[in-house]
């Protein structure tokens, strides 16, 4: 069972603000999902097969990058080709 404190913690880590109503709602939804997985865990003989695929590589060859104006298109604010962000140190 997760508590409202857990949900507050998760919301903080995800950097999203939630209202008290949402807190209660999300807590019950989280628990419903976890219960569902509890049921799956109890199913006999349902071991997940290990996928055999490994070592998927690309060669070290340069591909074209995006033009700067496309890169900056999604940025809320820019300056001299940089993306402008709130000050962090």
């Amino acid at each position, binding site marked *: 069972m997760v508590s409202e404190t857990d949900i507050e913690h998760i919301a903080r880590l995800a950097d999203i603000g939630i209202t008290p109503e949402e807190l209660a709602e999300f807590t019950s939804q989280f628990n419903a999902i976890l219960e569902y997985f509890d049921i799956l865990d109890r199913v006999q003989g349902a071991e997940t097969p290990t996928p055999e695929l*490994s070592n998927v590589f690309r060669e070290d*060859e340069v*591909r074209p990058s995006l033009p700067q104006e496309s890169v900056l298109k999604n940025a809320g604010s820019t300056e001299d080709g940089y993306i402008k962000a709130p*000050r*962090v140190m």
Partner: protein
Amino acid sequence: MTVIVGLEVHVQLNTRTKLFCGCSTDYRDDEPNTHVCPVCLGLPGALPRINRTAVEYGLRVAKALDMDVLEESEFARKNYFYPDLPKGFQITQYDRPLAINGTIEIEDDAGREKEVRITRVHLEEDPGRLVHRGGGDRARYSLVDYNRSGIPLLEIVTEPDLRSPQEARRFLVKLRSILEYLGVFDGEREGALRVDANISLEGHDRVEVKNISSYRGVEKALTFEVTRQKNLIRRGVPIVRETRHFQEARGITTSSRGKEEEHDYRYFPEPDLRPLRVADWVAGIELPELPAARKNRFMEQYGISLIHARTLTGDVKVADFYEKVAHVDPLLAATWVADTLLGELNYRSMSIAKVPPDHFADLLSLIKQDVVTDRAAVQILRVMLDRCAAGEAPESPEAIMERLNLGKAAGGEFTAIVRAVIEAHPQAVEDYRSGKKGALNYLVGQVMKETRGRADPRELGRIVTEYIETSEV
């Protein structure tokens, strides 16, 4: 009080492309945000693909440090929010790194060989770069450049085996040397190496110092910490377990209180990447001759001293350069590269890669054939280096010698100078004749000045003596 230090070293591997996409890693002189694509920009739906060469480079390091490569290793997501991280997570390796349990040999403060244990090496992507205009303290916002985002980093973690700031520095110098010999790293590139250091005094809590970005910085940051922690202990103040930032310009560390209160990265296996099963590649990796082996070979093959061999093999570029000029005369070349050239380069903050070896070999020939004095040779060398540093076309040492008239003075010109000096200093000549032998040095010095160092002082002493004793002046 015993000092206990462990390091986490991040080095950029010098692959052509980033770790998970084909963007070029050659970004240093380019406009911001011009080496990015949907993958390293973290756009929705973009899928990472692992650069094979980055994995091979990591394995080369693992083999050179005698490590155990994991049968299966995997990438993981480290989740946190920071503007230098476009996806909101960094792809790194967590509980299944590339390799574990290695060693690097260094010298301790008493000059004895000691082993530093390497806990692990793992691959991860470099975050973007933040720029603060008007200085870090005053900037009101951060500017983000994602050109660096996704550059392959190898993180090398040591056990807490280092016992002083000086040892930590020697460790880094040795590590750099090995990485450059392996051809996986170029330490001359700005920001190619970054270090976090854990430091404690025995019996007290440890402190993590972040943001160290040079070899000298490590020694400086740790020296500051040792003093700070000793002072606190002396005053009975407990050491707080915390993260501190190194302020390179001021040479101090400052507490980054609370800024990283949430150390909850929620690591989980990266669902977009398959695991690595590369342990069986190791047998096929051919390691080049590493610094220690090359040092021994230099002593044996060229007959040079341990000190010279050590200096010449510390940097792979210097070692290669020496081998290109040693044919003139191995001992002479060792002295001139290790004792003179490296000092002149250091003074100019210049790389040996800019010096044409054939010209340097020609200069050695001039010295060997006694065509120039040591002093004149140094002058020629300085002209050569200044020209290379300025990006001008190189000029042969002979040409410089002739242009600046630095050839060893001889014959008529020489006698004329000696005569002129003796005639101009009758008092000194008299002093010498009345037994004050020191006066000879003065006269020789005057002749040296006139010839601008083109004369051999010992030979000159003989000639001046002869002249005084046979002439009537």
